[in-house]
């Protein structure tokens, strides 16, 4: 079965990355405090601020707090335009303390691997049966543990969506059920959404991921074939809403050469 919407025919063409950014932006509700991160989540925060969440506040691990996002394309969160006209440039400890207090509504993360319970690995990967050292946690372990909701963005293939991650860099729901509480993590915290190049996954009360929506032109079979475990599918599976003109306008204003949204 192929899901292809009417709007897909008439809408402006867009890339998978742009669809992911739009989907990520919609995870930010107005007035929320967001641990932003770089690359696609950075654009998602900007899109959210300029469309449906004009009062969202962005936190960055280097200590920066912004109520008005930078209008420049950023390569890193430490780029000078991200400091220019910031609300506050404090210490890392200060923004991480807000996170630990439970005052961060949503944090965005990427990952090399994610598993069925939303655990993330960015420490040791595999390629051709060889162990491959990845850069490590950065702030990901902190955000995954302590943000009220965590949203993960990654490319969808069997090598990345695996049954069990080889290394839990950033905890999701562990082995499901009461795992997070039994490990001492805060009650209102954990993975909320996984946005891939094929669809959107959410999590059941048991902590296991299920397919919530498929992107336009993507079949459920394609998603299942590219997932490393038997992925559950929502009873009311929907199609991911394509990016609106307003969302695309913001992305292309900020990233006109598709540096992040290839």
């Amino acid at each position: 079965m192929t899901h292809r919407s009417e709007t897909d025919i008439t809408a402006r063409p867009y890339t998978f990355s742009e669809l992911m950014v739009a989907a990520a932006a919609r995870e930010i509700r107005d007035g929320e405090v967001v641990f932003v991160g770089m690359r696609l989540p950075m654009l998602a925060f900007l899109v959210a601020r300029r469309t449906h969440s004009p009062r969202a506040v962005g936190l960055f691990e280097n200590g920066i707090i912004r109520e008005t996002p930078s209008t420049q394309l950023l390569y890193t969160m430490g780029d000078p335009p991200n400091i220019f006209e910031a609300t506050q440039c404090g210490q890392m400890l200060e923004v991480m303390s807000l996170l630990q207090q439970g005052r961060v509504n949503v944090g965005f993360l990427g990952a090399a691997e994610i598993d069925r319970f939303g655990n993330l690995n960015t420490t040791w990967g595999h390629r051709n049966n060889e162990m491959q050292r990845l850069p490590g946690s950065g702030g990901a372990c902190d955000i995954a543990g302590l943000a009220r909701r965590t949203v993960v963005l990654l490319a969808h293939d069997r090598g990345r969506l695996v049954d069990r991650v080889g290394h839990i860099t950033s905890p999701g729901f562990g082995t499901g059920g009461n795992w997070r509480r039994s490990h001492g993590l805060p009650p209102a915290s954990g993975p909320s959404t996984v946005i891939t190049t094929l669809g959107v996954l959410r999590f059941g009360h048991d902590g296991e991921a299920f397919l919530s929506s498929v992107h336009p032109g993507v079949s459920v079979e394609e998603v299942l074939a590219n997932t490393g475990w038997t992925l559950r599918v929502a009873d009311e599976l929907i199609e991911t809403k394509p990016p609106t003109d307003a969302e695309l306008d913001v992305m292309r204003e900020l990233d006109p050469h598709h540096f992040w949204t290839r």
Partner: protein
Amino acid sequence: MSAESKLMSMRDAIAQHVPSGSMVLMGAQLEQMIPFAAGHELIRQGRRDLTLVGPISDILFDQMIGAGCVSRVLAAWVGNVSAGVGYCYRRATEGNIPRRLEVVDYSNFTIALALHAGAMGVPFMPTYATLGSDLLKKNGNLREFASPVSEETLVAVRALRPDVAILHVQRADAQGNAHLWGSLGVAVDGARASRKIIIVAEEIVEPGIISSDPNRTLVPGFLVSAVVHEPGGAHPSPVQGYAARDHGFFEEYHERSRRIEDFEDWLSQWVLHLPDRREYWKQLGPARTDALAVKHHAFSAPADFGY
């Protein structure tokens, strides 16, 4: 008491204060103000068995690991922030090239807490961060404990006391009273946690400039061992108000560090065959350095410290 000048060359600062085997904090301000000039001088002076400490490291740790200076890294992230992985880091961790590297994996928050504990002079700081993760299982400096005042489990993050912190800042006086603004990261705690501090400054100013705005002071001079005047010493990382980030340089390094032969060429060209930062700056050339200069100054409103 007349204040004694701590100004010295980078060569002397590294020679006097950073012997082989030291635990060195660098990159405290994350992607900004990374002390590349100091790192390159450590490579030139052939330091070995260094322990590097820092939250993330945007290619400086990778270069020092590739040059064989490092036996241990305590960090949350090692790589190339805008381009991806660090190839020297991968060669060292996966294949002991050029030598074995021990990695102690932290998260950003737990590195910050380790330095905070060091700065406070206490043995650990408590946190919920890393609960449930394999970082907690594998890093011996993170230990679960039962809270003595509440019914819960926390993680004790053991204090870190680096032998020396190398911090690049915008301006300092000759005694080491230093102003830093923009990206602070873990610089405040990192400075106080460390037994010695080397300040690398874009500008050397009169003490009155520093005391005119004491909230901006990163560290008082009495804690500082050496002051190095090294404009451009953070290139290719940015310095707020002084230099943009040289994105292309990070991309070039990514390409030229992929294969070990190419990395050795890179290291030779940009570090080993240059005597100092002045020659490095000449090699960059005016077209490149001009492009990085600040185009639109944005001075803060003056704060009135009068009474």
